[in-house]
């Protein structure tokens, strides 16, 4: 067994972990980051390609919750975490939500001015911007449909920087905060899965890891640390804590944004390189409409979801694009680490109100796509009729059921939850795991509820705040 020693061990290198590590090294702390996935040059793999899915996603992109219906989910598993594979949309936590969370979970120092201060810091460092030019057709289409219906739609800013020619590059953690942390002295150990945290009394003393060496051989790695930050995401963080003997509320309260999709065919070709930056916010926060990654492979998958004959549409894939409706649900799920299994069991049961909200979302999505000029709509509902006219949409209410809905999510949160309400939280207002002196969680798991929008901004803002708290107190 190899062993090493560090001051602060950060488990995970995504939005939470990278923010934590960069800030700690900036303050002169000695930091080691362990990441289960590989460290891949961000320029080496084409965004949203099949190769990316194989290299950077957990289980090559195919995970699903247990429940009726199941919800497929995607998690990044690489240095940079899900920031390497997401759309990079940036949405500050709306103040009515921070207010609600502050009250309901009794979170200290969670006011707008505190959060805005950290959000500004993070935005400054990351580079958050709007398009320097007109939106691409896939995005303009959504805006056009919304305008026609009188629905609110906005162009979301993204974590993108643009060069002189207007070419944009997504500012993933592997491009920004990880190199910054490394430059300031942090060590990154990729291909290294933490099996268990080690404890003594009310303290953690380090972690035991399973590391794959560059030559493919494996070793046990023992890391001794004065402080540990668990930032492995809303599925892996509670699973690691449970494997290490911490239970209580940990793993309960999992939230996600259940999502339905439509593959829509248009009279003219659309762009397929990126993800639309426009969102229909008319029904937010309970329901948001936007565009999905639509490479040929994604289009084939989305078309197949309807179980209709789609060969003709697939041949015409350049005129097809995938759009989605995501809901904030009433349901919450659970993450349970099972001894002997490397992947935790994730369960999530949608309520009848959630199922209805999804059906409503599917219809509204259909309305806006037809208004934008779509000629054919393939819903992600098995046996759901292919719709060509507005008066056919009504059939989707009854077509979407627990057994016919193909649901997915890319946002997972709230499986530890922060706040002073010890009944419902796994960590205090700053992410300190209850009952342990030197162990913190600092990622999506802390958000007490689903934010209804891309959570990256909220995750990074809260992580920056909590790291400052640590620096002031430890």
């Amino acid at each position, binding site marked *: 067994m190899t062993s090493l020693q560090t001051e602060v061990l950060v488990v995970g290198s995504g939005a939470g972990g990278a923010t934590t590590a960069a800030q700690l090294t900036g303050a002169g702390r000695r930091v080691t980051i362990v990441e289960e996935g590989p460290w891949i040059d961000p320029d080496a793999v084409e965004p949203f390609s099949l190769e990316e899915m194989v290299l950077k996603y957990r289980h090559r992109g195919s995970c699903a919750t247990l429940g009726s219906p199941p919800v497929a989910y995607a998690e990044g598993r690489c240095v940079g975490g899900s920031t390497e594979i997401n759309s990079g949309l940036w949405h500050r936590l709306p103040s009515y939500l921070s207010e609600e969370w502050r009250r309901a979970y009794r979170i200290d120092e969670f006011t707008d001015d505190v959060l805005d201060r950290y959000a500004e810091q993070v935005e400054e460092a990351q580079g958050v911007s709007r398009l320097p030019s007109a939106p691409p057709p896939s995005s303009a289409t959504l805006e056009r449909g919304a305008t026609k219906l009188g629905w609110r739609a906005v162009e979301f800013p993204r974590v993108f920087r643009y060069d002189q020619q207007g070419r944009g590059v997504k500012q993933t953690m592997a491009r920004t905060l990880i190199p910054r942390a490394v430059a300031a002295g942090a060590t990154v150990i990729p291909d290294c899965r933490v099996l268990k945290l080690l404890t003594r009394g009310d303290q953690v003393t380090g972690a035991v890891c399973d590391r794959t060496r560059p030559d493919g051989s494996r070793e046990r790695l023992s890391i001794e640390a004065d402080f540990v930050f668990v930032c492995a995401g809303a599925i892996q963080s509670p699973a690691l804590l449970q494997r290490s003997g911490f239970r209580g509320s940990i793993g309960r309260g999992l939230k996600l944004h259940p999502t339905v999709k439509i593959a829509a065919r248009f009279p003219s070709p659309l762009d397929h390189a990126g993800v639309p930056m426009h969102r229909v916010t008319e029904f937010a926060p309970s329901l948001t409409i936007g565009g999905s990654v639509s490479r040929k492979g994604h289009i084939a998958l989305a078309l197949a979801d309807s179980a209709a004959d789609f060969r003709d549409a697939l041949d015409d894939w350049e005129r097809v694009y995938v759009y989605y409706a995501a809901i904030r649900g009433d349901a919450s799920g659970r993450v349970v680490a099972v001894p002997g299994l490397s992947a935790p069991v994730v369960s999530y049961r949608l309520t*009848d109100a959630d199922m209805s909200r999804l059906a409503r979302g599917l219809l*509204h999505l259909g309305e806006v796509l037809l208004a934008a000029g779509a000629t054919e709509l393939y819903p992600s509902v098995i046996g759901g009729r292919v719709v060509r006219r507005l008066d056919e949409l009504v059939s989707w209410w009854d077509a979407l059921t627990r057994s016919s809905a193909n649901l997915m999510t890319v946002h997972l949160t709230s499986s530890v939850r922060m706040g002073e309400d010890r009944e419902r939280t796994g960590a205090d207002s700053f992410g300190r795991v209850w009952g342990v002196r030197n162990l913190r969680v600092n990622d999506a798991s802390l958000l007490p509820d689903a934010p209804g929008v891309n959570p990256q901004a909220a995750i990074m803002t809260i992580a920056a705040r909590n790291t400052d708290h640590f620096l002031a107190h430890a």
Partner: protein
Amino acid sequence: MTAPNGSTDSAPELPASAAVVTGAAGWLGQNLVRALAPSRERVRCLVRTDDDASLLSVIGPSIEPIVGDVRDPAAIDMLFDGVGPSTVFHAAGVIHPERSVRSLFDVNVGGTQLTLDRARRAGAVRFVHVSSNSPFGANDVPAGRFTEDSPYNPYMAYGQSKLEAEQLVMRSYEHGDLQTVIVRPPWFYGPFQPARQTQFLAAIRRGRFPLVGDGTQQRSMVFVGNLVLGLLLAETADKAPGNAYWIADARPYELREIFETIRAALAAEGLEVTERNPIRIPALVGSMAEAADKFVQGRGRYVQAVHVLGELKDTIACDISRARAELGYEPPTALLDGMRESIRWCLANGEQL
């Protein structure tokens, strides 16, 4: 300046010359449409079937029925097509779903969202939303009264669906999309009642309807004629937009008083009423029914008899002071007269009492 509802000049006159009514062939809808028909140029009526359309067409030349599903965007487009400045009375809703709980949400929430959206696009002058007592649950004590400031505490799936609908309506107002008014009626009675209410009166007549507990629990009720008055006042009152109002009879009644008054009304209409006292069942049975109801609804199913039994043990009473002060609402009909009118309607329509 552009007004929130999309019109470009000073506020249009109220009451509007056109009315749009969803749920027009329902219990409340039939009463409301009859009140609107003589004074409006057009009364657009959303109904479920061709039979319902014929039923309403005979009321008068202003009635314009549209057959469709309140969940259907194309049907709601037709409902508002060329209607002009109108007041929308959104009365469509499911109270007792035939089987599945989900339809409560599909219709009560989904239908409300669609109707709000199309009303906004059509430039509706005012949107009067028919809600319920169910987002508020039951009062803690028999003397308790809901006011407009009472906190939400939804009773099961129906209450949850009506709460979500209210939230959509309020958001539409806050966004400046529509001038909305929420009207919250409790348990109705009156003409055009559905079969379940006729069965209820018939069971009382025969002493077969159970009195849960000691019968001192209180219930607000509203005679449909009083409710129609409340809706019409909500359409025109200056203070109403953005607000919600309880619309009920002048005072709540004890459950035993309701039973006794129905017996008196039946007798006054010349019907023989049993001498037997109603079956009394302990409040505990009501609680057990409530638990059973929660259990089956948790599995997506709905059993009406169990639901009704579970709800009868509680006090559900409201205070109409704000409607009195801000709408000028003064309910003209009280329980005995209103029940007599219901019974006469049943007899005139060949209903088996």
